[in-house]
C-alpha cells in the first residue's frame, strides 16, 4: 500500500520526553491540570510525528504519549474494569494490572481522537493501534466471568467496534497487539484465532498483529490462521532464530520483521539491518516483508530510539537498492 519495497514502521510506543514524564507524575498527584497534561501529550506526539518523518519511516505511529500501559489504557476507559494494583512483569518493571469486576464494554471510542490528531499532522499514513482481546483478558485479573472464553469474546466485540471507528476516521492500517497470544498455546490458540476473526471482520484497512517473546515456534504454523494481513514479530533479539521455523511450511502472511532489539541500549548498525533482511529473503519473499523494531521502544531513551530507527531506515534503503540492482 505504500508503494515501496520493505515499508518501514514501528511497533507503537516511543519514550516519553522528560517534560511529559514529569507532567504525568504531577498529574497523578493531582498537581497538574488535566488540560495542561493533554497539551503536553499533544506536543510530544507532534514531536514524534515530526521525528518519524525526518527519520524517513513510511508508516507512522502516534507514539502513545498518552498511554501508561497498553492494557490499562483500554481498561481505564471501558466498563467492567478497575485497576487492582501494581504487579511486576520482569526485573524492576511493574504494570498497573486491571481486574475485571463486571460486564466489559466500550463506552465510546478509545483511540480515535488521538488517531485523528496525529493523522492530521502528516501526509504519511498513521497506524491505528489497539490492544487485542486475548491480551487484555490475559493481562487482567478475571474476577467476573466464569470462563476466560466469555471474557475474551466479549472484549473482541468491543475491540472490533473500535477498529471500525478507526477505519471510519480514515485509518488505512490497524494494528491489534497480541503479545500474550501464545500464553496457553495448546489450550487457547483456537480461542485467540476466533477472537481475531471477530476483531477484523469486515474491515478494509490493512491489519497487523504484533506478537512478541514467548514460544513462537509453538504457535507456528497455527498463527497463520489469524485473520490479519501481517504478523509483526521480534526477530533480532534471538538473532533471527525464528527464520528456521518459517522455512516450512511457508510464511503465508506479510511479516513485520523485527530488526532492532527493543531491550538493548546499543544502536544496531545499518549493516546489521541489511544483513537481517538479506537472511529473511532466503525464507520469505521481498514483497511480504515490512521492517520494524522487535517491540515498542518506550523503554529506550529518545537518543537510543532515534539512533536505532535511523539505522533501520538506512539499512532498509541499502537493501532496497541491492534488490533494485
Amino acid at each position: 500500500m505504500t508503494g515501496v519495497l520493505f515499508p518501514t514502521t514501528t511497533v507503537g510506543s516511543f519514550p516519553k520526553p522528560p517534560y511529559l514524564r514529569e507532567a504525568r507524575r504531577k498529574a497523578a498527584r493531582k498537581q497538574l491540570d488535566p488540560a495542561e497534561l493533554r497539551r503536553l501529550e499533544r506536543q510530544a506526539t507532534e514531536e514524534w510525528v515530526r521525528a518519524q518523518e525526518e527519520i524517513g519511516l513510511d508508516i507512522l505511529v502516534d507514539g502513545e504519549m498518552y498511554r501508561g500501559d497498553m492494557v490499562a489504557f483500554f481498561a481505564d476507559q471501558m466498563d467492567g474494569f478497575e485497576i487492582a494494583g501494581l504487579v511486576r512483569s520482569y526485573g524492576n518493571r511493574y504494570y498497573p494490572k486491571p481486574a475485571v469486576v463486571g460486564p466489559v464494554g466500550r463506552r465510546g471510542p478509545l483511540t480515535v481522537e488521538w488517531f485523528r490528531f496525529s493523522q492530521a499532522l502528516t501526509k504519511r499514513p498513521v497506524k491505528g493501534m489497539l490492544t487485542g482481546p486475548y491480551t487484555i483478558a490475559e493481562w487482567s485479573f478475571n474476577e467476573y466471568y466464569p470462563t476466560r472464553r466469555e471474557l475474551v469474546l466479549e472484549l473482541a466485540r468491543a475491540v472490533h467496534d473500535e477498529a471500525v471507528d478507526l477505519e471510519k476516521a480514515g485509518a488505512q492500517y490497524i494494528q491489534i497487539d497480541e503479545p500474550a497470544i501464545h500464553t496457553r498455546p495448546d489450550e487457547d490458540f483456537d480461542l485467540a484465532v476466533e477472537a481475531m476473526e471477530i476483531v477484523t471482520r469486515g474491515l478494509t484497512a490493512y491489519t497487523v498483529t504484533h506478537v512478541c517473546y514467548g514460544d513462537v515456534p509453538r504457535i507456528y504454523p497455527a498463527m497463520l490462521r489469524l485473520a490479519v494481513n501481517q504478523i509483526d514479530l521480534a526477530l533480532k533479539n534471538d538473532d533471527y532464530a525464528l527464520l528456521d521455523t518459517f522455512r516450512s511450511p511457508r510464511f503465508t502472511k506479510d511479516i513485520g520483521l523485527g530488526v532492532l532489539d527493543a531491550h538493548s541500549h546499543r544502536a544496531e548498525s545499518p549493516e546489521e539491518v541489511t544483513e537481517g533482511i538479506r537472511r529473511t529473503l532466503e525464507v520469505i519473499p521481498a514483497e511480504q516483508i515490512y521492517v520494524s523494531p522487535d517491540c515498542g521502544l518506550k523503554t529506550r531513551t529518545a537518543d537510543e530510539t532515534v539512533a536505532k530507527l535511523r539505522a533501520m531506515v538506512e539499512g532498509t534503503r541499502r537493501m532496497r537498492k541491492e534488490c533494485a540492482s
Partner: protein
Amino acid sequence: METTVVGSYPKIPDPPAPGRWRSSVEKHQRGEISAADLRHIEDEVTEEVLREQADAGIDVVTDGQIRWEDGLTYFARGLTGFTIAGLQRYFDTNVYYRQPVATGEVAWRAPITVADYAFAAAKSTRSVKPVVTGPLTLAVMSRDEHYRSLDRFVMALAAALNHEVRALAAAGAALIQVDEPGLLVRRDQWPLFRRAMDVLWDGVGARRALYTYFGHVDGLYPALLDLPVDVIGLDFVAARERNWDVVRRAPFTKKLGLGVLDARNTRMETPEDIAIACRRAAEFVSPASLHVGPSAGLEFLPRRVARKKLDALAAGVRLAKEGVA
C-alpha cells in the same frame, strides 16, 4: 494443620507508598547506590515481608524471595556453566525471566541461598522455609547449548543443587522446599525426574517438600508418592477440580501442601472458602498433615491483595481447626 506460603511475595507496596525496592534497583543501575546499599534495602524489605506474613498468622514463612529477579536466573547465576540471555515468558503468566543458557559443565561452586536463609531465619519470629528451584524446571526453562541431552543436563543440575540443599540443611533449615512446576509441562519426563529427585535429596538431613503449581498432577499420581520427600505441594486452583479428583485415586501417604488460595487472581477468598477446602482435604489426609497455603507464589498479586489473602487464609484455617465451618 498449619498455614504456609509457596514462596514469592510482592516486593513493593501499593501506591502511593513508595516502592523502595523498585527505585533502589533503578538507582543501582544508574550507579547512584552501591550493591551493598541495594542489599541493605533488600534486607529491610525482607524483614518487612517476614513481619507481614507473621502478622497475618502464617506458621511457616519464606523470605518472600525479595532478592530473586526470578526463580531461574537466581540459581543459574549462582552455579557455574550458565550465561543469561533474553526475556522469556514464565509458564502461562505475564511474568518474564531472562533465560539461562547452559554453555558449559554445570557445577555448584558456593552456597546460593544460604546467606538469605540465615538472614531470614535470624529475623523471623516464625519458622522459615528456604526454597530452591528444582533441576527439571531449571533445565526445561533454560536453553541447553552444552549437554545436548535433557537427561544429562537435568542430572548434572540435580547433582549441583544437591550441594545447595545439603548446605541449607547444614545451616539449620528444618524444612526445605524444592519447586518443580516444570514437571507439569514435561510429564513425559517422569522417569528422568524420578532419578533426579534421588540425586537431589541424597543425604539431606531436613524435612523435604516438593511443590508443583500451575496445573494438575493427573498421570503423575500416585507415582509422586514414591519420591523421597515428606511434603507434596499441589495447586488446587489452576486445574480447578482435577487435582481434587486425582488425589482420591490412592491413599495420600505424605503431608499435603494444600494450595487453595488463588495466588493469581485478585478475587478474594473468604475464611469460609478456605475452611471448606480444608475440610474437603481432611477427607483423605489427616488434618495434622495439611500445610494450607496459596496455589503459587504471591508475587502475581498486588501487595495489598496478597496481604488480605493471607489474612483470609489464616482465618480460614483457624475456622477449620475449631470445627466451626
